[in-house]
Every structure is written in structure tokens, then in C-alpha cells.
């Protein structure tokens, strides 16, 4: 009986619109702030750490990939090389080729 006496009350639609509009306004303000932060942040040297770290991580991953692929081809290059200098030349050429492939893909 108490549950019946104290039934939950549905908020009117007009209230939903009213509250959501107000909250949306606040959320939009947050998004604008984010946009401003992204551009503005680059002017502040203290915020350069983040993109630098991101670039470094990308570069490290790319380098590791090149090394892995060149190592994988090493046996083939060794078999085809006439002398150590030729092997070095082939390895450098392969590394440059792999680096170009990764750079093109990015």
C-alpha cells in the first residue's frame, strides 16, 4: 500500500528538454575548451612532451619493425652476397626499402 501511495513520478518532457539543454550547453563548453586546448596547448612548451612522446613511440615502433624485417631477410642476403661488404650494402639497401614501405603506409 505504501508503494502505491508513493508511486514514482515521471518527470514531464518539458523538464527533460530544459535540463538536457542546460547540460548540453555545459558539455558544448567543455568541447570548445578541448578544441582551444589542442591549439593553445602547442604554444605552451610544457605541453610539447605529449606529442614528442607520441612521435617517439611511433618512431621506436617503426624502427623495431624495420630491424625485424631486415633480420628476417638476413639469411637470404647472406647467401646472395659475394663478400661482407656486399652483405652490408644489401642490408642497408633492405633497411632503407623497409623504412620507405612503412613511411608510405603511414
Amino acid at each position, binding site marked *: *500500500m*505504501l508503494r502505491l501511495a*508513493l508511486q*514514482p513520478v515521471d518527470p*514531464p518532457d518539458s*523538464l527533460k528538454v530544459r535540463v538536457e539543454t542546460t547540460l548540453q550547453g555545459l558539455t558544448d563548453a567543455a568541447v570548445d575548451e578541448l578544441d582551444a586546448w589542442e591549439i593553445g596547448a602547442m604554444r605552451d612548451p610544457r605541453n610539447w612532451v605529449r606529442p614528442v612522446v607520441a612521435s617517439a613511440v611511433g618512431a621506436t615502433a617503426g624502427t623495431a619493425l624495420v630491424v625485424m624485417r631486415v633480420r628476417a631477410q638476413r639469411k637470404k642476403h647472406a647467401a646472395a652476397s659475394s663478400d661482407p661488404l656486399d652483405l652490408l650494402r644489401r642490408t642497408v639497401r633492405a633497411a632503407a626499402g623497409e623504412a620507405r614501405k612503412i613511411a608510405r603506409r603511414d
Partner: protein
Amino acid sequence: MDPPDKARLDSDFSELYRVHLRDVYSYAYYRVGNHHDAEDLTEQTFLQAYRHFERAQAESDGRPLRPWLIRIAHNLAANLYRDRSRRPQTPIDDTTGLSTMHTTEDLVEGRDELARIIEGIKTLPEERREALIMRFALGMDNREIARAMGKTDGATKVLLHRAIKQLEGIVTAP
């Protein structure tokens, strides 16, 4: 706070709003007794909650935030009463607030008891009435009510027990 964190916080808050709008409105309505003030109170509750959401979320330690929301509504309602220096204009103590929640069928088809309960709730002390609203209109458990009212679990259990006992006395009185 970084803006990306703020965007995540806004998203979490939207979810809190979506899930608990009805709870806050129900509480506000039963507390102030009319739709106009209940709407204002609900809006103010969510705006205030938005301002303090980051801290509340950090301090909640994963516990539900509904008691915190209801506590905000409770404090705002108290301020509303204080500012007006009187009881609500169409108060729950009056006849309209609770009665309008029920269909004519509810009240006519042998529901004398329901009518007596509704009248009885209006005469309860504010704290007891609030505890009943939280328990029965919002479906909150003892622990949630305790957090919303700033009481211990034990004190809340006693409060609810006394509220129901008092109400039973009112309803069964000749």
C-alpha cells in the same frame, strides 16, 4: 583537469542524469508537493551535482551516487523552505500533492486504506516522511537512505521502523 578528462566526466554525468532523473524528480515532487517547484528543484539539483561531480565520483570509491544526488536535492529543498520562510506553497502537507498522483479508480474502488495512508504520510514528521519517500518512491535500501540522510545504517533502520509504526497507528486509528 585536462579537457579530455572533462569530456569523459561529462559523458559519465550524462549517464548519471539519464539513470536518476526520475528518482530526483520523484523525491523533489513528494518533498515540495507541486510540479513547478519540483522542476526547479530537479534542475538545480543536477546543476549543482554537475559542479561537484568530479570530486563526488573520486570519493565515491565505486559506490552508487544516487544518495549523493538525493542529498543535494534534500539540501536545496531545505534552502527553498528557508528562503520562503514558510512551508511549500502547495505542500505535501496540503491535500493536492499526493492525491493527484492517484487515479480516481485507485481512490474510489474501495481504496479507503490508500486514502488514509496518503493522509497519514502528510502528517508524519519531515524526517520520517523523507525516509518513507526514499524507501517506497525511490526504492532505496537502508544503506542508500543512510548515506542520503547522513545517518548510520542502524539509525536509518530505526527511523524507517518508527515511521511505518507511526503511520500504521494513524491509518488504523478509529
